[in-house]
């Protein structure tokens, strides 16, 4: 993951607005490898497309000049962390420059070492969190390195027009595109890959989704308008994964993405995932990777699910302030036990830890949490508050008197 992030640093900076959309009208790159050509043909045949990145499917809008605003280049970091940002904007609107490089790769999705053909934004599942303020512009350079095999693009739920930008960003291996959109709605929003036909659910279920957070310029507020601040952000992306099994029930492995397509699609159409995990794999946020906090610290938990409904719950804690639908112009709900995140959206929950110990953060469909993997842990240090909870008597034998009392009551 670190490798891909540093790789991104070396990528060409998103400079002045380049006429890269013209790239979309070029034919399939002659430098494309044989495998990628085969792949494209397979994919096209599978979904009845003439060719990937077909110019005929892309609109050709007029290109206006870039807004005359200061520019700021953002270095992304891997989930569950958030890149450096101000909670209250110290600037006027800016053009925020991001670069995302797409990485197709094999990943491990559970402790048993199950291999999975993944597609990722930036090498991580989910793709990195991008944070801007309302009124800023997001200018994204989307790179599809020649080492990849598939065409990709990006649909920002936070953007307006052109299928969220997907129609303007379809890049073949060896291409890149730059998209600029205005962040005019505060909230947390999903972004995901959205080529065409069956490629859409496949790319998303293979890992190509992430989250944008558009903060109000003056920061988060409660229902009464009082400022709400956090000490840190944890960013959880939930994935429903579909790993095909052989006739003996063992997970199958594939040499390439293309070879995994048909079996994976068959399984996806049955709608029962083999894994439901946070941040790419079972245990990505437990044990040595558990999220940490201290008693008294306030954590903003961003939970994103691009495909399927989920219901986050903090065992032993609560959601002090929750934007269940993730959009900050709506008043946050308070004191929630479990919140609902609709498939294709992100939600945000603010919580101040009040007690030390281990907290499990789960999808409270407990079958998915325990059996399929949707569990994370918070490791919280501090002083125990025995007013909030006290073990009055540890487990032990039932005293004779209590047994008698129990019998009488019954």
């Amino acid at each position, binding site marked *: 993951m670190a490798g891909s992030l540093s790789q991104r640093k070396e990528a060409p900076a998103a400079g002045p607005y380049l006429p890269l959309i013209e790239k979309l009208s070029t034919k399939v790159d002659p430098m494309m490898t044989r495998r990628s050509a085969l792949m494209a043909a397979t994919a096209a045949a599978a979904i009845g497309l003439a060719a990937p990145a077909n110019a005929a499917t892309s609109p050709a809008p007029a290109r206006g000049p870039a807004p005359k605003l200061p520019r700021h280049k953002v270095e992304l970091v891997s989930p569950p962390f958030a890149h450096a940002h101000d909670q209250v904007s110290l600037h006027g609107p800016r053009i925020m420059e991001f670069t995302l490089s797409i990485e197709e790769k094999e990943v491990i999705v559970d402790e048993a070492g199950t291999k999975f053909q993944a597609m990722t934004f930036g090498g991580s599942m989910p793709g990195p969190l991008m944070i801007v303020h309302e009124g800023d512009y997001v200018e994204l350079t989307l790179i599809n390195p020649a080492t990849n095999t598939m065409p990709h693009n990006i649909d920002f739920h936070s953007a307006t027009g052109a299928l969220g930008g997907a129609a303007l960003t379809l890049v073949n291996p060896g291409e890149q595109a730059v998209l600029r959109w205005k962040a005019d709605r505060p909230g947390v929003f999903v972004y995901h890959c959205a080529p065409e036909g069956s490629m859409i659910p496949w790319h998303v279920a293979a890992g190509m989704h992430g989250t944008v957070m558009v903060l109000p310029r003056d920061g988060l507020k409660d229902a009464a308008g009082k400022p709400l601040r956090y000490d840190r952000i944890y960013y959880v992306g939930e994935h429903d994964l579909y790993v095909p099994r052989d006739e003996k029930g063992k997970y199958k492995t594939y040499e390439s993405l293309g070879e995994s397509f048909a079996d994976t699609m068959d399984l996806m159409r049955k709608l029962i995932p083999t894994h439901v995990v946070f941040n790419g794999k079972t245990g990505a946020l437990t044990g040595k990777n558990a999220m940490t906090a201290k008693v008294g610290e306030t954590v903003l938990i961003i939970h994103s699910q691009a495909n399927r409904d989920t219901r986050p719950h903090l065992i032993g804690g609560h959601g002090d302030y929750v934007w269940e639908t993730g959009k900050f112009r709506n008043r946050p709900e308070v004191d929630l036990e479990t919140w609902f995140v609709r498939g294709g959206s992100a939600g945000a929950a603010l919580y101040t830890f009040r007690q030390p110990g281990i907290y499990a953060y789960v999808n409270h469909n*407990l079958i998915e949490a325990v059996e399929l993997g949707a569990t994370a842990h918070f490791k919280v240090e501090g002083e125990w508050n025995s007013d909030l909870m006290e073990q009055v008597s540890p487990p032990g034998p039932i005293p004779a008197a209590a047994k008698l009392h129990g019998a009488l009551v019954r």
Partner: protein
Amino acid sequence: MPLFVKITMAIGAGMIAALPFAMSCGTCGAPLPGEPELATIAPRVFEYREAGEFTRGGHPVDAPVVSGAKKTPLTLMRRLVTAAEYEQCVQEGGCPASPQDETSGEQPVVKVSWRDASAYASWLSRKTGRAYRLPTNEEWAFAAGSRVSDDSLGAENSADPSKRWLARYEKESSRDILDKNVKPTGAFGVNEYGLADMAGNVWEWTDTCYRRVALDVGTAIGRSTENCGVRVVAGRHRSYMTDFIRDPRSGGCAVGVPPANLGFRLVRG
């Protein structure tokens, strides 16, 4: 069906290999045909940390270490019960079926519960006319010798329950995740008593029941409760399992790294 044939052949080969050893031992109580290869460990003084959960003054503490002499020899299997052996018990109606992977005939049997293991012990005892049973956790520790790992946490007797909880989480999180794939018998070597695969990647069922003990004065056993629906599982670290569980994977809310696989070896006598 090809699987069954393969397993039957494996059993045949195993028995032939075991025969010379049985013959050479004559009437000394060594294995008869059909009995597994056994080792006998001589009595010695040893230290053992009790199994179960202990409290003092109402707060959780490490289990006490008991030190003493084991006065009688212990005779037990040199290796874990194999998939082929277990399959024979299934075929003869003595054990519940527990499907194994195709290639596992000569490997330790896994995906077996305490109930399955106990059924196997009864079947083998009937078949051989000798008394076989699961070891107690103390017997397992006696036999494991240098391969026993201590599960003390050190975070003593605090009114703050999170301290011990966090200490346990740290300890469990620091364990390496083992390769779950079952290896051929002997892959984890033998210990100082010639026992194969002690504390490898197959944990072993013991007959010891889970218990909770209040230590009121020193390490003397105070009041306790016992739950024999949960048994102690011995191996690289000690664990407690409900007796019908075959797959120890915990996955979610339970913290730490669970045992990789569940199998067993038996004690004779």
